[in-house]
C-alpha cells in the first residue's frame, strides 16, 4: 500500500460511485495581526448520498472553518487559499453570488454551532422559515406558512409556536427550530456544527434521535461536527479526526473505534466516556493544541505524542495513507508497524 500525496488522484473515498460532496486539498487561513492562522490545511474528504460523515477534534482544530468554507459563508479575515469543493459536478468555489444564492439551502444547508445566535431575535420562528422558503420558491405567504407549520411539526414543535420569538422558546426548541429552517427546502445535504453542544444530555439524545429519523425520512447526507466522539461512533457512517487544521485519520466508524491508527485518535477516544459504556476512563489529553500561526515542524502532533519516533516525527510531515480499504491515517507509526510485520 502506498502513501498517497494530497494531490494524488486517489483520496479517501467513501463508497463507490460519485460522491455528493467532494473536498480536495482545502486550505483556509485567517489573516490576523499576529500572522496567518492556517486553520485548515490540505483537507480532503468525500460524502456520498445519505451518508453521515462525522468530524471530531479538539476546540480550535478547524471544524467550523471547514463547515463554513463548504457553505462559502466565511468572511474576512478568513480566506480560502486553495483546494476544490465539488457538489455533484458543480464547483462550489467557482460559483457567482447569484449562483450561490440559488444553490445554498436548496441543495446544501447548515445548522450553526449555537442555536441562540443563529436565530434573529426580533423575528418569529415562523417568519424565519417562511422567508427561506419564499427566497427560493414562488409560493404565496399562506403556502409558505403551511409548509412552515409542517416543518415545525416534523421537528417536534407544536404548531402554535409558529409565531413565537426565539427568546420565548427553550434551548431545545430553539435548536429544533434551527433544524426546521435547515430542512425548509429539503436539501440533499445538511452541515450540522455541534447541533447539541449547549443542551443537557437528555434533550441532546432526543434531538440526535430525531435527526436520525429525519435523515431516514428525507434521505439527506450530513456532515456532523462535534467534540463528542462517542456520539459520532453511534451516529455516523464514517468519522474524520482533525488535529490542528489537518485530517489525522478518516474511516468507517466501527473501524476507527475498534482499530484507531493515529495516536491522537487513541487519546481522543480515551478522553471521552462512551454513551453506553461505563463513565470511568476520563483521561484528558496532556498539553494543548499548537498555535496555528507557527505550527510544529514534521507531524503537528509530535510534541504531545508519547509514541513519537525520535527524529522522524519532528522532521517529516506524515501524509494520509491507506490502512484498510476505506481507512486512512497520517502517522509514521503505520510504516513502522508495516516494517515489523
Amino acid at each position, binding site marked *: 500500500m502506498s502513501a498517497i500525496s494530497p494531490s494524488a488522484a486517489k483520496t479517501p473515498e467513501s463508497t463507490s460511485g460519485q460522491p455528493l460532496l467532494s473536498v480536495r486539498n482545502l486550505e483556509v487561513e485567517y489573516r490576523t495581526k499576529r500572522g496567518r492562522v492556517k486553520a485548515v490545511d490540505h483537507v480532503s474528504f468525500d460524502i456520498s448520498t445519505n451518508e453521515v460523515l462525522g468530524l471530531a477534534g479538539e476546540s480550535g482544530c478547524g471544524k467550523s472553518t471547514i463547515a463554513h468554507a463548504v*457553505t462559502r*459563508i466565511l*468572511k474576512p479575515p478568513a480566506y480560502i487559499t486553495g483546494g476544490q469543493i465539488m457538489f455533484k459536478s458543480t464547483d462550489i468555489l467557482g460559483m457567482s453570488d447569484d449562483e450561490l*444564492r*440559488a444553490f*445554498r*439551502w*436548496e441543495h446544501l*444547508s*447548515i445548522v*450553526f*454551532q*449555537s442555536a441562540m*445566535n*443563529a*436565530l*434573529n*431575535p*426580533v*423575528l*418569529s420562528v415562523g417568519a424565519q422559515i417562511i*422567508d*427561506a422558503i419564499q*427566497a*427560493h420558491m414562488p409560493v404565496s405567504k399562506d403556502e409558505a406558512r403551511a409548509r412552515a407549520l409542517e416543518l415545525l411539526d416534523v421537528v417536534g414543535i407544536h404548531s402554535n409556536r409558529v409565531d413565537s*420569538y426565539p*427568546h420565548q422558546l427553550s434551548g431545545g426548541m430553539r435548536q429544533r427550530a434551527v433544524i426546521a*429552517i435547515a430542512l*425548509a427546502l429539503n436539501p440533499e445535504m445538511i452541515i450540522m456544527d455541534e447541533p447539541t453542544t449547549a443542551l443537557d444530555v437528555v434533550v441532546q439524545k432526543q434531538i440526535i434521535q430525531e435527526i436520525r429519523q429525519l435523515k431516514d425520512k428525507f434521505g439527506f447526507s450530513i456532515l456532523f461536527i462535534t467534540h463528542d466522539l462517542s456520539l459520532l461512533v453511534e451516529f455516523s457512517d464514517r468519522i474524520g479526526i482533525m488535529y490542528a487544521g489537518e485530517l489525522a485519520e478518516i474511516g468507517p466508524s466501527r473501524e476507527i473505534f475498534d482499530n484507531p491508527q493515529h495516536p491522537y485518535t487513541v487519546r481522543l477516544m480515551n478522553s471521552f466516556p462512551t454513551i453506553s459504556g461505563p463513565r470511568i476512563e476520563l483521561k484528558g489529553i496532556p498539553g494543548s493544541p499548537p498555535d496555528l500561526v507557527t505550527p510544529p515542524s514534521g507531524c503537528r502532533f509530535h510534541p504531545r505524542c508519547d509514541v513519537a519516533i525520535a527524529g522522524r516525527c519532528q522532521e517529516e510531515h506524515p501524509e494520509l495513507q491507506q490502512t484498510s480499504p476505506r481507512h486512512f491515517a497520517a502517522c509514521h507509526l503505520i510504516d513502522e508497524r508495516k516494517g515489523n510485520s
Partner: protein
Amino acid sequence: MRFLFRRLTFYIVAAFAAITLNFFIPRMMVGDPVQLMFAQFQGRLDPRAMESLKETFGFVQGPLLQQYITYLTNLFQGNFGLSVSSFPVPVIELIGPSLAWTVRLIGFSTILAFIIGTILGVFAAWRRGGGIDNIFLPIASVVGAFPFFWIAMVVLYLFGLVWKWFPIGHAYDVSMQVDWGNPTFLSSVVQHSLMPLCTIIITAIGGWMLGMRNNMIGVLSQDYVTMAQAKGLSDRRVMLVYAARNAILPSLTGFAMSLGFVVGGALVVELVFAYPGMGYTLLRAVQGRDYPLMQAVFLVITLAVLAANFAADIMYVLLDPRAR
C-alpha cells in the same frame, strides 16, 4: 408593557428631580437668594413683582418643607409665576409661542438627523471601507470636534451674509402677519428655518451615524445574519430586517444621553440665528435675570426631552419583541 411602565415611572422620578432641583438651586447659592433678587432688581422692579417673584419660588415665611409645598402647589396649578422682564405677563404666555417654534425646528431636525444618520450608518457598515465609510466618516469626525454654535456662526456667515442665500434672524419675515394659511408666510418660515435646520442636522448626524455603524458592524458578525445570507435572502432583506433592525436597538437605548446633548447644542444654535425658540428665550431670560422665565423654560425643556425619550422607548418596544 412592564418595560414601558418601568420607564414611565423613571421619567416621573426624573421630572420630579428636575422640579426639586429647580427649587433647591436658588437656595444653594451663597447668600440669600431673596437678597440677590432684590439686589438685581433694585429700584427697577415694582414691589408687586417682587412679591410674586418670591411666591413663585416659595420664598414664604416658614420652614423649608412648607416652602417646598407652596412651590409644588403653585407648579401643579400651572402657575409658573410672572415674567420679570415683561412684568406682569405670565411666564406661560411667553413660553407658548417659543415652545412651538422649538418643537418644530429642533424636533424636526433631530428626527431627520436621526433617520439620515442611521441610514448612512447602515450603509457605511454594509460596505465597510466603501464610499460612505470613506467620505462621511472623516467629515463627521471633523465636524464633531467643533462646537455646535461655532458651526452655526460659520453657516450664518457664509450662507446668510457672504452669499446671502437665506434671510437671517427670526423665524419669519417680521414685517408679515402670522398667518399659517398664507403661502408667502409659510415660505418665509421655511426660508428662515433652513439655516438653523441644516446646522442642527449637520452637527447631530455624525454621532448617530457612527453609533449605528458600530452597532451594525457588531451585528453583521452574528450567526443569524450569516444564516440569513446563506438562506438566500436578498441583500436588502438581510441588511434591513436581520441586521439594521437589531442594530438600531442600542441606538434607541442611547437616545436619552445623546438627545440631551443634541438639544443643548440646538438651543445655542437658536441663539446664533436669533430664532425665537426655547433656547433663545432661555438665554434672554438668563441675561435679563428673569428667574421665573428661566426656571419654567428649563422645566419645559426637561419635560420635552423626557417625552421624546418615552417616544423612543415605545419605538423600542415596537421593534424588539423581548421588551414586550
